[in-house]
């Protein structure tokens, strides 16, 4: 059966990793290529790169990084950030990305999901959702989680699947950064409505949080950034721990 996945996420601005900290054995902690190699060696099942470059002119720096990573690391690569058109899909897929994650781009133009799925296949399209509770309901937020769109998140997830998204990233704004565990309630509401894989994001602080996530059966993968970047969790140790607790892992 399929192994549950552990996915580190790297934010890249102007070709450099944001929030790079001191790692042993890495020459340059803010080099996305060095960090990606490190994560690959540590047993990451997939890598996610978010391009948070503000200016359009510097987008080339990101694709250069992506090309280099893809030429040295042979695990699935997902790319997000600034994906608004089919041309954006094309641009990153040509540089070695396997999946493309859309967020605000799909809010602005929901047809982007179906058009991309038709052109590149469902497996290629990841719908990333920033979700927050508003008056007891789950709302989709846009623009890096700053703007309440008023869109019902559960319906948005179902629509996304129907339009051809092959995977969902559920990022809980409520638990993000709190490091007190994933948002199991939110994940459960989404998971029960779709058949496509759900990637949980936001809230991981310790190994036990991942065990709780997978034991609850509400996600196929756990995604995190800072706990991996700040070496609070070592991916190899995490996977050994989960495996010893009967979670199927690629170790």
């Amino acid at each position, binding site marked *: 059966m399929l*192994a549950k*996945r552990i996915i580190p996420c790297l934010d890249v601005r102007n070709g450099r990793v944001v929030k790079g900290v001191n790692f042993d054995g890495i020459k340059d902690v803010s080099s996305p290529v060095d960090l990606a190699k490190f994560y*690959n060696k540590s047993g990451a099942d997939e890598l996610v790169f978010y391009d948070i470059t503000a200016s359009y002119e510097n987008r080339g720096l990101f694709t250069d990084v992506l090309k280099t990573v893809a030429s040295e690391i*042979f695990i699935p690569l997902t790319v997000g950030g600034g994906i608004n058109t089919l041309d954006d899909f094309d641009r990153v897929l040509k540089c070695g990305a396997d999946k493309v994650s859309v967020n605000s781009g799909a809010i602005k133009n929901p047809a982007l999901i179906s058009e991309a799925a038709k052109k590149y296949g469902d497996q290629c399209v990841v719908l990333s959702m920033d979700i927050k509770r508003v008056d007891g309901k789950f709302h989709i937020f846009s623009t890096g989680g700053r703007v309440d769109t008023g869109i019902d998140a559960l319906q948005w997830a179902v629509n996304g699947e129907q339009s051809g998204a092959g995977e969902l990233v559920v990022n809980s704004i409520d638990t993000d950064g709190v490091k007190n565990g994933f948002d199991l309630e939110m994940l459960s509401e989404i998971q029960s409505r779709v058949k496509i894989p759900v990637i949980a994001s936001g809230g991981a602080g310790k190994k036990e949080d991942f065990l709780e996530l997978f034991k609850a059966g509400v996600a196929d993968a756990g995604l995190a950034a800072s706990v991996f970047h700040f070496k609070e969790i070592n991916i190899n140790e995490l996977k050994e721990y989960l495996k010893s607790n009967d979670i199927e892992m690629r170790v």
Partner: protein
Amino acid sequence: MTRNFFQSTYNKQKLFNLLGVNIIAIVDYGCGNLYSLQCSLNFLNLKSTITSDPEVIKSADKIILPGVGAFGDAVKLLRESGLDSIVKTEAEKGKYILGICLGMQLLFEKSYEYGEHTGLGLIKGEVHPLSNDIKGDLKIPHMGWNALNIKDINDPIFKYTKNGDYVYYVHSFYAKNCDKALLATSDYEVSVAGLVKSKNVYGAQFHPEKSGDVGLNLLKAFAELEDR
């Protein structure tokens, strides 16, 4: 003159052959992104060329038939380019061939992906929708890391691979009725044909170029297969 000579892929190929350098031809018939695959071969220091030139394919040491997308479209492109018969002839001559993902499915006799399509017929068996056989609530496509149950560990393709190693799959259709060709399977409610072989023709349903070290080791072992 000299410059033009070396700029021609065909001449470069001939030169490599003269020098005894083995080349893997990655067949480009307009189906899929070959960037990662060639990167993985480069990473292993293996010489490869992405080509649709029959002469280059004929003179190559080994052939990789890649592919993503729909079987019907792919087989049509392969036929229109005439590369189907080139690949078939080379296979029948005994050249080592590796089909990857849809490229593996193309090696079979038939596919029932949206209709019925004839494949290259190099391996006995057919390709069917996973959705016909998966009755539980497992997700389709079968996408992610799954373990290999190796049937014949003595096959040279497994020189650097061990039973239970994980490989990366992305597919919604799978090969059936190919028991004799099975080298390795993965469990996904049904038994998924992961790696198949008929004589000198190999097929991998998973993506070795996305399967980390395990995938690289399989590609390395493929490149090292020696003429029988």
